[in-house]
């Protein structure tokens, strides 16, 4: 399942922070799908509409810098984001992504690799992204096995639950 991820790209710039993704003033909202409507609302007011199709995020450096708020990953999960490819991730953000079962792929990409709206197919087990629009293959360093295992189990809590009730 996680070895064949298919979707369309949405390109973001460098240094997207957790306040950009979920503004602080949306953090106390109790309904997570309400909160998800605020995703990136200051920088990309149409994101919530666009992401319905453009469900693979391509970001620059230091993606997810800032707060430990896991809401900044969870809103993407609610909105159906299938993977996030970034040049670099902020530390806590990367953990949160994997923990919630969203593949975070670190790749120093450039404009010849991806444009907005490209149709991608990602094989996590092979470390390969096939850009169907550009008919181009890009390879990335595979995640360590134990992180891939967390993704296969659809998040670390599912994995832990299996262990606890073994």
């Amino acid at each position: 399942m996680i070895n064949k991820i298919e979707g369309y790209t949405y390109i973001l710039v460098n240094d997207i922070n957790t306040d950009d993704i979920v503004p602080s003033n949306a953090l106390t909202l109790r309904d997570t799908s309400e909160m998800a409507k605020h995703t990136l609302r200051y920088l990309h007011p149409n994101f919530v509409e666009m992401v319905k199709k453009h469900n693979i995020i391509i970001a620059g450096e230091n993606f997810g810098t800032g707060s430990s708020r896991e809401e900044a990953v969870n809103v993407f999960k609610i909105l159906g984001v299938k993977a996030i490819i970034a040049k670099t991730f902020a530390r806590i953000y990367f953990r949160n992504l994997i923990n919630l079962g969203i593949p975070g792929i670190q790749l120093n990409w450039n404009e010849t690799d991806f444009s907005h709206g490209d149709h991608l197919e990602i094989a996590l087990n092979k470390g390969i992204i096939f850009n169907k629009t550009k008919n181009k293959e890009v390879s990335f360093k595979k995640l360590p096995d134990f992180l891939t295992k967390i993704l296969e189990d659809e998040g670390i809590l599912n994995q832990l639950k299996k262990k606890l009730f073994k």
Partner: protein
Amino acid sequence: MSNTIAEKILLDHSNLKDVIPGQFIECEIDLIMVHEQLGGRIHKEYEKLEIDYVWDPNKIFFILDHWVPAPTISAAEMHQDCRTFAKKYKFIHNIGMNKGICHQVLPEMGFSRPGMLIVGSDSHTTTYGAFNCLSTGIGATDVSVVFATGNLWFKVPESFKIILEGLLNKGTMSKDFILQLIGDLTTKGAIYKSLEFHGDGIKGLSIDGRMTITNMVVEAGAKFGVFLPDDRLTKWLKERTSTPYKYVYPDEGAVYEKEFNYHLSEITPVVAKPSSPGNIAQVEEVEGVEIDQAFIGSCTNGRMEDFRMAAKILKGNKINSKTRLIIIPASMEIYREALKEGLIEIFLNAGAIVGNSTCGPCVGGHMGVLGPDEICISSSNRNFVGRMGAPSAQIYLASPATVAASSINGKITDPRGLL
């Protein structure tokens, strides 16, 4: 094998004989701090595990600080949710909402001690590194894993050695140093690294000042910021805890990925311009920018050293009529101490608004939310778009000295002229 402080403490909390940077390891956690996130996400996530216990209710420090007292119904509901959880799982250290901000109260109560491995549901958990321990922020799911098992996976970080020499000049604070360091490293320059602070310059820094530095290492992406211990730390800990501890020093020959030298006397007042903590400029470059709000407080700069400095500048002065100054102590203990020393009186006389201890304005929560296009100079840690309120508002980060000086003139001001 020779190890850095980070390697030593992680090794000590694993069941391994040796660790190397880049290695993924499992560690036992000594203490976990949680705040409103408990009711925000952790509660719902934890229930998915369908277990009726936490691994050790004595190793959980739970406090409400971000939105206290509750400014909205949804914040109040979040607090209710937190309390329900704390009661259900029989938390022992249930601190409540009348003590202050987590990163100040936890050390004040003696919970952060040398050699410990502490995690918390807040990115500024790095603060406790001032006490010669390792501490870092994690998300709600990681908190759930710790609640259930007491363990967490870590990637052993490479370390940067930061050597401090000399003393800060008058009007310059440890905030100016950490902003300068973030500017030099950039906000991505230390992703996943442990910053280890060395050198004789440490001796001249108060514990308050060290906490400001370790608090903000995360703005350069760092996983840990840790100070070598000294007599000042011994004295501080003596007043706070009777639990035995052992100092951790790096081994001779420990390997550092990079080394940086700073002479503190060469540090000058700086600001982080909108909208990144790494967007550093000398205060002279932005002097004269008119401000609507000035804020002294937060887990970064709401301590006695900060208040004493602000009082020195504000004493006998009035804040500019076009500006509001909000002062919020990092803990209620600090509030009491500032009252006793007469600092609160000085703030009130200057026309400041003094509030109860809360994260409040720093997270755009309450007690000083910014309106559209407003400009704020703040002693807090982040100036991201929308962080303190309206997305069109602009935030300059600075030391409490610079914030106090700016509030008097109604525009960004070099504090050195007022001391």
